[in-house]
């Protein structure tokens, strides 16, 4: 007897179990599938990995992809008014994919599935990739490993700092804008929970960025330049307003990053002093320091992905000069170069030997703009020792030096404008004195434009007297402004013009 009753209870028991245990379990599995994956977009090709691959920094600093895409649309009025479209207004580069379609993200933006979203952030390539054209009508080529001469990081930071205090920076504006402008349909969970939460978290993070980095006046840097050390101070939460004025402006050019292996050894057997000021000799430490700028902190850094880049950069070499070289003239230039330049800058573009290569020349001797040198302080060097604390990567090699490092000149034709602060538009002009010391002869121009990417096949560098092309305005550079002086490095300026031309011809082979 009682069997029907037992069955009923059994049925009820299983139903209850399904509700109490099964449903939450199912929900948990679904949520886990949605939120737990942590997967970067990967690239087999090393150059693609450099341009678009992850450093791990997106886990910490990554913007949700759709928000990243909608920001320049919603805040179009906050873009720099230079005629550029979207992120191109900051000098970012959009390539086409294999099918010839414009890529979704520009060079230097990495992407990872993390916390249930596609998140994007800048990687190394954003500051170390440039475009160049051989003539105005020629195709635009992308070159990796050199300074991003046309990219305005300062304006990009200013943009993010501006929009975060704009009243449109809220989910009621941004979420509908995603659906309308990016053209995706968000699910209920995304629309009502995840994206509003993402906007909230982003606002908190960007407020921190605005508060710490805003006082640096990043908009003054100009394209191709960054105030590395004051950014480091801001990251360390130094109170920027209280710093002495003489160390507060330190913008300098993005450097090239090829041939790292050869930079690990100089003539005296030591490692070369790296960075413009020569403040570190350890390539690994320098790399981790630079990677901090991509959001890659000790907790989130992807050592495997970065290691792949480091290995590649050991021997990555610059591309050859894309124009014909006058061999005879270059040979004559080589002897002049050997006499006047080689001891500090290496025998050639491939051979970095030379007594003073990778050493620091005292600031008063080289005489170039002091501001970047001033911006790197002993106290900052000491504070940098805490980065990566608790791991075997802790920084121990940062030093305050007495001047600027003598750098090898590999790929120098693609590294214009010249000097650490990008104050001399072409190599040929670097062999002339500044206007004030020219005494009627030829001189380094005091004003020019940065951002135009057509190469100068004669003077070497980018053509820099073009203020505008097809409605895109370029950035005015005046050597009278702080951090931008074109004085100093007066080596070879008294040579006859023909000898200078020959040296420049030889430098084209680097």
């Amino acid at each position, binding site marked *: 007897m009682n069997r029907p009753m037992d069955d009923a209870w059994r049925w009820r028991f299983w139903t209850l179990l399904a509700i109490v245990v099964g449903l939450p379990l199912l929900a948990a599995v679904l949520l886990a599938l949605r939120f737990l994956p942590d997967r970067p977009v990967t690239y087999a090709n090393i150059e693609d990995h450099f341009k678009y691959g992850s450093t791990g920094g997106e886990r910490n600093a990554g913007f949700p992809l759709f928000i990243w895409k909608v920001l320049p649309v919603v805040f179009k009025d906050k873009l720099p008014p230079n005629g550029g479209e979207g992120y191109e207004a900051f000098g970012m580069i959009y390539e086409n994919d294999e099918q010839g379609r414009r890529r979704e993200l520009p060079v230097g933006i990495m992407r990872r599935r993390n916390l249930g979203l596609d998140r994007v952030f800048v990687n190394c390539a954003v500051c170390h990739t440039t475009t160049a054209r051989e003539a105005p009508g020629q195709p635009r080529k992308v070159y990796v490993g050199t300074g991003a001469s046309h990219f305005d990081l300062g304006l990009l930071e200013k943009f993010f700092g501006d929009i975060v205090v704009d009243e449109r920076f809220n989910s009621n504006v941004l979420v509908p804008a995603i659906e309308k402008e990016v053209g995706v349909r968000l699910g209920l969970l995304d629309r009502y929970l995840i994206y509003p939460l993402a906007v909230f978290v982003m606002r908190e993070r960007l407020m921190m960025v605005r508060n710490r980095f805003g006082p640096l006046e990043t908009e003054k840097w100009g394209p191709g330049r960054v105030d590395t050390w004051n950014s480091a101070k801001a990251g360390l939460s130094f109170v920027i307003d209280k710093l002495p004025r003489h160390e507060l402006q330190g913008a300098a050019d993005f450097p090239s990053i090829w041939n790292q292996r050869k930079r690990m050894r100089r003539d005296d057997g030591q490692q070369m002093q790296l960075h413009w000021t020569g403040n570190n000799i350890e390539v690994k430490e320098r790399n981790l320091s630079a990677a901090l700028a991509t959001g890659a902190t000790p907790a989130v850094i992807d050592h495997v992905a970065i290691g792949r880049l480091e290995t590649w950069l050991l021997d990555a070499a610059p591309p050859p000069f894309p124009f014909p070289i006058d061999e005879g003239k270059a040979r004559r230039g080589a002897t002049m170069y050997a006499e006047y330049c080689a001891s500090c800058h290496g025998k050639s573009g491939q051979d970095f030997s030379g007594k003073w290569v990778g050493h620091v020349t005292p600031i008063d001797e080289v005489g170039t703009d002091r501001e970047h040198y001033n911006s790197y302080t002993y106290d*900052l060097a000491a504070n940098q*020792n805490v980065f990566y604390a608790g791991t075997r990567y802790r920084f121990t090699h940062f030093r305050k030096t007495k001047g600027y490092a003598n750098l090898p000149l590999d790929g120098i034709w693609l590294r214009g404008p010249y000097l650490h602060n990008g104050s001399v538009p072409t190599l040929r002009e670097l062999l002339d004195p500044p206007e004030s010391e020219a005494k009627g002869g030829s001189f380094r121009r005091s004003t020019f434009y940065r951002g135009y990417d057509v190469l100068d096949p004669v003077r070497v560098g980018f053509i820099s007297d073009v203020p505008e092309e097809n409605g895109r305005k370029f950035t005015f550079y005046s050597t009278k402004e702080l951090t931008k002086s074109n004085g100093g490095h007066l080596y070879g300026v008294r040579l006859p013009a023909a000898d200078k031309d020959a040296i420049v011809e030889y430098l084209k082979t680097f």
Partner: protein
Amino acid sequence: MNAWTPERRKRLRIALVVLFVVLAFGAWFGWYKFFRVVPQPPFNTADERFLYGSLGGEESAGIPYWIVYVLPRVFPDLFPGPNGWAAFGFSWEEGQELPVGFTKKTVGFARVGNNCAGCHVARYRLSPEDKPKFVPTGPNHTFNLEAFFRFLVDCARDPRFSAGALMNEITLASDLSWIDRMIYRFVLIPITKKRLLERGPRFAWIYNHGLPYWPDWGRGRDDAMNLTKYFLTTSPVDDTLGPTDMPSIWNLKKYKTNPNTRLNFAGDSYDANTVIIDSALGVMGAGPSNNQAFLDQIAWLTKYLEEYPAPKFPSAIDQTKAAAGKVVFDAHCASCHSSQRTGTVVPVGEVGTDVERIKSWNKQAAIRANETVRGLGIERRGLVEADPTGYVAAFLDGIWLRAPYLHNGSVPTLRDLLRPADQRALFFYRGYDVYDPVDMGFVSMEEQAMRLGVPWEAVKAVATPYDVRWRSNGNKGHEYGVTLPPGDKDALLEYLKTL
């Protein structure tokens, strides 16, 4: 009735074993995460041990490492300057994880304590373009100890001292495991906050300040005897104030030359060993967890400090002029500074320098302090159980680096000390580290800054103001050699460079 059937017994046994395993694991886990003592890694040099070696105070008073790490990130506005821990004027060597005087030791978790080197490593430069040079056992004239004390309490009192705000920064900077993050969030941060808040009331007297009656100590000074009174002996807070210069502690064997020598500015202790023990106890903020280990470190320190040589003057010395100066010195200075009297107490009525430091200590305090230390089971010769009556006639070894001068640091340079008291500087800045080899002292006035090419703004941004009219800051007295002809004074200064 429940009989102990074999089956029940077996179940009970299993339950007990499981319980034991769980408890044992819990105990091991608690020990591992909170009490396991890992010795500091060995030091390469004696100097390194002095600079970073633990005194053994981390167990009771150490602050969890990652809290120390993120304080500059979370509370930048509470620092006296813009550059993190460096803002307090600690020496910080290139490549070192922590400033000089900070010790890192793992007791369950990494903890940070302090040691003697925080106050007793001097720094100087000869030009603002130079890097600082660090001299172990020298007086840390740049260190703002009072600001450091206040800072730790102020942080704990700030609403930002919460698990949320601190963990936000810790997570950015570290790769701590989930368990360690939980330990920080729910145990270490709340306990640290509580401990720091408890310091507050005992530091009431350093919050009392107002001019001119309660000046700040300023850089390079501490109210040493009041610290001893209130922290070693928990005497009631009184109305005295006696900040004095951080002293040099090199070459301590000199005090052994004569049985009448006394240490501390007012001759408050009999021997170096006593001073080192008492100072170390003060720095640790608590009794040692292991007396033998503590006394071993003290013995090592005593030996190190006895033998450490005074630093040589870093620029050229005119030997002829110095020889002439020696004659002046022998005639006017040697009777106190190079004689049987050196290192002994000179009555304050005779030397005439500021009296506040003497008032800040007394016989009763000495008796109490001696009792306290004895109570910890530590034997030492002890503090002099008598009211102080004057100031010790100083040994002058390495005097060039011991600016500013007199016990309270009221005279910025040696040249100024050779002027009559009413012509000495009334107001100057102390704590900047560029050295003036002409007047012999650190750049502390605008005239010196201009002469040496130092931006005056840079001095004022770092240094703290000093006015001799504020209480305990008087620059009167010690008017010896003040009427000498200028040539003799120059020669005398040259000779002092050789000491």
